[in-house]
């Protein structure tokens, strides 16, 4: 039984060129971004919760601070920005989970795409809604007396974007390992989200908390992000917290992408 298939190397597939990682990543990124381009208001979906926190928690914090509006917002809004990055990217794996259960993900696995591109293209897409959402939060806060340093905001958003890529990749990794067990995805998601949020000091200061909380905050990358954003949005580029936040974002990104790419390779 000889296997000769000259048609395989010529003819019908002439239009198909070999694809590289960068091009594959771009193709995946474009596909993932399309629903947002078609329906820009969908960015509001994961923005609702941070805005609720801003609107309901903000006045309480201001009251506790003896009515110091500007000072409280200066402290609180950077935390909400980090919350946006956290909430937006933590649930992004749910899309992949859904596509794994239909046949959409399987289709991309049969396409001649690099496995890394399937993960990286998706994770990069997180940057777009995150930057839009972060900007919206700041714009909403400014009329209430929030003073923003524009250059600091730009750098702050870059750091958040790097973190978002990594955290989105982790969410995809979770989806890849949960397969058809939605409940497991959401259980892990819900179990981690609020502890990560509270143990970062983004809503309430941890200075008066017990020691174990301070230890937990010290290993929580979000703590460093919150510190960095507070410094950057105030225009204080020299604050060592900025470097700490940048390192936390880069480490999260590196871990997320490495773990995610491995999970995606195993998926085929």
């Amino acid at each position, binding site marked *: *039984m000889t296997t000769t298939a000259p048609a395989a190397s010529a003819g019908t597939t002439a239009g198909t060129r070999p*694809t590289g990682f960068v091009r594959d990543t771009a193709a995946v990124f474009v596909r993932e971004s399309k629903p947002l381009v078609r329906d820009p208001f969908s960015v509001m979906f994961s923005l609702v919760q941070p805005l609720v926190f801003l609107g309901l928690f903000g006045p309480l914090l201001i009251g506790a601070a003896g009515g110091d509006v500007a000072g409280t917002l200066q402290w609180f809004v950077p935390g909400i920005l980090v919350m946006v990055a956290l909430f937006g990217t933590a649930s992004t794996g749910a899309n992949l989970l859904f596509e794994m259960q239909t*046949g959409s993900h399987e289709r991309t696995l*049969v396409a*001649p*795409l690099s496995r890394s591109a399937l993960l990286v293209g998706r994770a990069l897409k997180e940057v777009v809604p995150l930057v839009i959402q972060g900007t919206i939060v700041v714009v909403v806060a400014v009329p209430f007396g929030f003073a923003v340093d524009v250059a600091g905001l730009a750098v702050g958003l870059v750091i958040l974007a790097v973190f978002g890529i990594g955290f989105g990749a982790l969410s995809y990794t979770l989806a890849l390992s949960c397969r058809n067990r939605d409940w497991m995805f959401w259980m892990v998601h819900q179990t981690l989200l609020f502890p990560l949020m509270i143990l970062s000091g983004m809503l309430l200061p941890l200075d008066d908390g017990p020691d174990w909380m301070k230890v937990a905050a010290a290993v929580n990358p979000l703590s460093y992000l919150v510190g960095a954003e507070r410094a950057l949005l105030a225009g204080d580029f020299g604050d060592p917290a900025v470097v700490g936040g940048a390192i936390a974002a880069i480490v999260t990104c590196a871990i997320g992408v490495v773990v995610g790419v491995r999970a995606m390779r*195993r*998926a085929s």
Partner: protein
Amino acid sequence: MPREAGLMTNQMITAQGLTKTFRSKGQTVEAVRSLDLAVGEGELVAFLGPNGAGKSTTLRMLTTLLPPTSGDAVVAGCDVRRDPAGVRRRIGYVGQGSSGGHTQRVRDELHAQGAFYGLGRRETRTRAAELIESLELGQVANRTVQSLSGGQKRRLDIALGLIHRPELLFLDEPSTGLDPHSRANLWQHIVELRRATGTTIFLTTHYLDEADRLAERVMVMDHGSVIADDTAWALKESLAGDRVTLTFESATDASAAAARLGGEIDGADGASARVVTVTAPGGDRALPRYIRELADAGIDVAAATHRQPTLDDVFLALTGRSLRDEAAHAAPIGEASEPVAA
């Protein structure tokens, strides 16, 4: 006949000893057992079998989605183990589930698919427009996938599988879950694709009529093995023969006739006890002979029919089970798609 013909032409798919064993929760499932396959260029083959026969698992090994436990396969000239990327570039695959992203628009999804296969921007757009036209997706091209009907989703799946003009197309249960009208429409598209491009098509189905209507060659699969492989016509002719059904006035006449003709009484009591079915090659010619023979023996035939065997008769003859009954328990689309195994 097609098997020999396959050897003459170029092979599009060959497999030797292809085996897949799943191990989960201490249980082992031999989904595919030492399968040998040879499909020639331009063939349209139907892989027919009940749910759980191992059809999807076979397809997923041939399309590089699952590594075989053992055995080898060469698909479109590339080895599935050594050159999976080569296989992926050359084949189209329409899986069992719906393959469009639910929040994506139909046209966007086709454009994305073109980019996935490395087509240029202009070529992608032209090709997407062609497929939207030929698969009658024009009305829904700007709608999101989640808003489509089952038939429209399936046509999109096929369009996605064809964007890069593959020389070989795999279709996993293309019409499962569709209403009769959408199924007929889908079949028409498959037949038309074949006529216009000569694409080799390998499809799985648990529908007898689908295999019968579409395929020149039918491979019957059961419990992970291929138990028959021929044209639908030859399978019916060689394995089953025609069905001659004779109805009598009394059960006594029926049992006498059954003994005489070597037939089987349909049931133990009631009306079916008076019905005898005889399997005979060339049943149309056998029927008058039976009536004469029974008249000579003093047995009157009250009614007589003759019908061609169906693929269900073939399946019954091969396995002792009716595929029709098994198909009735088939899982709906989506639920049947298993997770991608490690």
